[in-house]
């Protein structure tokens, strides 16, 4: 079975959908600048606007509420950066100088928030419970007339936990603040309707939904104050300068369209695969713990901590067997701290170092899950056999 290739890292990125690939290849010759008035330009413009309609339809938005950007990170940076502009023309950030976000956001939100804090914005961070759910009581206590923006991710990339964005948005609006959700991991996996959620800003990334890399979209509800992050052009109705990534945008539109068709039937199948995977791991490997919410999480994401083993070692032994996963271990990230998400949920640092994320996608099969379940137990056994940390019958026994 050495030739078997299993890609279980869909939360990192996804392969292009064959239909997306087909359409992008067919559009390779399209080089016109959508801003040009001639035929070349009009062809590109028509395709960009067609994609905008598809993305808008996918999340229940109007076309003029969709801004194409270079990535999910850019969209998140754009929203948070609205708050450092002291002009009275801008979002009322000048008078409402507090931002609330969570401890489990993507680094593009956390690091931007830290940067804003240096510029005088007050930033407050919400705790999460052991399953990764935001503490709504804490949020209620933080909300006040000083709060300008609340940013809470819809689905967590590492543990898959879903937040109740609809309820949070109601609370946020009741205090007069704006609501942003980073929905990069949620869109394409669970139904996302911006009207139902009620949010003012929502972030999407194309490469997480079987579209190309280097393109994302920011939903900005009609009438919401806005200021561009990248200035100096009239593209995207003056809201994001820079000649459009026409091919990428076209691919994103097609990807959104395909998700609308395929997503409804997919969730149940993925949930079944995840249950088989989780049960298989629980039955064949001792001393593991499941991270994330038992029911309120992404059907495709399973995060497991293996006692006494370090995640990068697991990742690389699996790589040798043709299986791709990711880990919350510090060693794999180049930093010295393990996953900030797992630490925020109260997972012990050691178990965070030993965490593996399996994230499945539209092509994941039962055969792949079975192959993984064949390969994984001996790998864990092998690493535990050479580990100081793991002695059967008691953790740390060797250290004593």
């Amino acid at each position, binding site marked *: 079975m050495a030739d078997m290739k299993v890609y279980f890292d869909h939360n990192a990125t996804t392969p292009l959908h064959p239909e997306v690939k087909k359409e992008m290849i067919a559009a390779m010759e399209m080089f016109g600048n959508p801003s040009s008035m001639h035929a070349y330009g009009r062809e590109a413009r028509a395709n960009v606007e067609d994609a905008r309609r598809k993305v808008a339809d996918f999340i229940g938005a109007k076309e003029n509420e969709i801004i194409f950007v270079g990535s999910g990170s850019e969209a998140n940076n754009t929203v948070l950066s609205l708050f450092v502009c002291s002009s009275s023309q801008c979002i009322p950030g000048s008078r409402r100088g507090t931002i609330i976000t969570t401890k489990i956001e993507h680094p593009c939100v956390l690091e931007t928030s830290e940067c804003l804090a240096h510029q005088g914005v007050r930033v407050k961070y919400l705790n999460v419970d052991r399953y990764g759910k935001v503490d709504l009581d804490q949020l209620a206590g933080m909300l006040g007339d000083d709060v300008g923006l609340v940013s809470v991710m819809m689905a967590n990339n590492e543990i898959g936990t879903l937040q109740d964005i609809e309820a949070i948005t109601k609370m946020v609006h009741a205090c007069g603040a704006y609501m942003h959700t980073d929905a990069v991991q949620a869109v394409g996996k669970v139904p996302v309707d911006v009207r139902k959620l009620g949010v003012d800003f929502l972030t999407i990334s194309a490469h997480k939904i079987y579209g190309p890399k280097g393109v994302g979209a920011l939903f900005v509800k009609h009438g919401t104050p806005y200021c561009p992050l990248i200035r100096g052009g009239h593209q995207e109705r003056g809201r994001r300068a820079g000649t459009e990534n026409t091919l990428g945008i076209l691919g994103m539109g097609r990807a959104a369209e395909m998700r609308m068709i395929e997503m409804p039937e997919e969730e149940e199948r993925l949930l079944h695969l995840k249950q088989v995977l989780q049960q298989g791991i629980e039955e064949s490997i001792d001393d593991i713990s499941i991270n994330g919410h038992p029911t309120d999480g992404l059907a495709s994401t399973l995060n497991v901590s293996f006692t006494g083993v370090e995640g*990068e070692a697991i990742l690389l032994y699996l790589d040798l067997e043709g299986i791709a996963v990711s880990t919350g271990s510090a060693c794999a990230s180049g930093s010295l701290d393990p996953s900030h998400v797992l630490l925020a949920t109260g997972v012990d640092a050691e178990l965070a170092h030993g965490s593996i994320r399996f994230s499945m996608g539209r092509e994941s099969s039962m055969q792949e899950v079975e192959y993984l379940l064949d390969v994984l137990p001996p790998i864990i056994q092998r690493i535990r056999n050479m580990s100081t*940390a793991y002695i059967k019958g008691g953790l740390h026994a060797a250290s004593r």
Partner: protein
Amino acid sequence: MLQAGEWAYSETLKEHFMNPKNILQGENTDDFDGVGMEGNLQCGDQMMVVIKVDKEKDTITDCQWKTYGCASAIASTSVLSEMVKGRTLDDAFHISPKEVALELGGLPDHKIHCSVLGDKALRAAINNYYTRNGQEDKVKQEQAKVICQCMNITDHDIEDAVLEGARTYFELQEHTKCGTVCGQCKDETEVLLEKYKHIHFGA
């Protein structure tokens, strides 16, 4: 188009990771003459080294280990266990992390800190042997020397900060807070910074 590249690691390291040598089987260390353990699980790395010693010749006849850590931690302990066999205790005591890295065909900068525990654990095992055999006089403690009196920062703290990525005096201060009060230790700290950069990164 390029195919999937090689790992961030050398072929030698990959080989030691795939087929680690001299793993201590089970938990029993009674057959060994010296046992040393360094690191902790919270930080993601811990290594235990056990040695057998030819008491006539003061040489290491066997070296086995257990490691909790990433691929470079596993491979560096494995290669170290091969390197020390047949060496005198004194010789083995002076093996540096740089020698281990060299034997592995090099390590990425951010992985150097994963490999320094092996030789520390080895030194602890050698010291343990000396202690067990009534040769306490030979035990060489790696005592830390306080460099920054105000913040109580030792040379070990400075070495750790370098291993964790500090390359300039400013970065060192960010890591350790050394010299942030009276600043009198700046010259001595800068000398140590250069020394540890040279020892660990050949810079």
